[in-house]
């Protein structure tokens, strides 16, 4: 029978806390950048110009249909070769996760925009609004309200996806957990604690969002 002993974790509290900081920071950053990318891609997708639509669709399909782990590794090892730029693991992870999230956000935002009744944009044009003003003042505020649950869902997924950056040795919660496990020879306790921390994280946010 295995003897559980969670007290050993106390010695690694700063390490784990540091990891949690990185994880939370990564989540916030990828969600913000992802939303920006997603909004841009969604608006391009609804544009009248075929070239913008094609570019946006290409981007979305590439990032939606490949595993995020592959994207991470590719961004870190292959992209610097192709583009001839140096990238830290941090930058590469941030890029891959943001684009991955952005592709999904784009589809959510596009869906939200087209779900708004045509009459709303017609009423806005009839009042003399330009399409961009109508989008900002009339369409997006209403669409945002409808998109909120789906955006929330995607954000939770993005939070969990940050755990993958540990493969590039970015010291997030999982990576630091691994360190602690190797050091203490207590993987069961460490990973249990890591899992509990992950679980507790989105729950309060979830409760705030009806």
């Amino acid at each position, binding site marked *: 029978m295995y003897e559980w002993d969670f007290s050993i974790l106390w010695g690694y509290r700063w390490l784990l806390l540091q990891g949690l900081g990185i994880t939370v920071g990564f989540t916030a950053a990828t969600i913000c950048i992802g939303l920006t990318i997603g909004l841009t891609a969604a608006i391009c997708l609804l544009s009248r110009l075929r070239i913008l639509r094609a570019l946006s669709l290409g981007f979305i399909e590439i990032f939606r249909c490949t595993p995020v782990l592959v994207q991470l590794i590719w961004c870190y090892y292959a992209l610097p070769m192709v583009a001839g730029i140096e990238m830290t693991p941090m930058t590469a992870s941030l890029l891959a996760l943001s684009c991955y999230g952005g592709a999904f956000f784009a589809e959510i935002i596009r869906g939200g925009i087209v779900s708004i009744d045509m*009459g709303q944009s017609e*009423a806005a044009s009839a*009042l003399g609004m330009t399409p961009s003003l109508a989008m900002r003042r009339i369409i997006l505020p209403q669409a945002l309200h409808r998109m909120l649950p789906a955006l929330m869902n995607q954000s939770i997924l993005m939070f969990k996806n940050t755990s993958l950056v540990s493969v590039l040795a970015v010291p997030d919660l999982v990576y630091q957990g691994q360190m602690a496990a190797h050091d203490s020879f207590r993987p069961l306790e460490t990973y249990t604690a890591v899992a509990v921390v992950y679980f507790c994280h989105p729950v309060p946010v979830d409760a705030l969002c009806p």
Partner: protein
Amino acid sequence: MTVKPMIEISWLRKCFGPLEVLKDINLQVEQGGVVALLGPSGSGKSTLLRCINLLVVPDDGSIRVGETKFEFGKSVQQPKTKPLAAFRSRTGMVFQNFNLFPHMTVLQNVIEALIHVKGMDKSTATALAMSQLEKSGWRTAHSRCRRRYPAVKNNVLRSLVLWRWSQRLCFSMKRRQRLTRSWWAKCSRLYRNSPQTG
């Protein structure tokens, strides 16, 4: 001396696929004129109004409203976004199914275009909107509606014009509000769709 009519429509045509809705429409409206379009359902009354406002681009013919003239046809380029918006800001339209903005209060619905299209400052716009809402009998209609639909009551505890869910307004209130929104966007021409709409 004859006065130039305010609205002049000549040889206007519009087809939706094989369905020819407007066939060579010619119409002139004098300044200050009140015109009623009559016709059975599906005869194209709404389509004509939407053409005058260019929400629907006609296939052929021309439309002149005031000094602005638009020509339509295969060879003619479609009007640009900016002049189109400027042209529309000088006209008003009441839609058949209102199309109020549900995320805004009654007051916000009315002042939205005044502020963001006409560039009026907020206090002036609010004062103007309040006086016009008052004039349109919105307040009376509102209290009548409250009596008829008691369920609505609880939502109206706050100030009358701060009522957010304008989609729950009853018919006559919607009518008044929409009318106020388009009419008092300080326009010189107003197109109302359907008598019961305004």
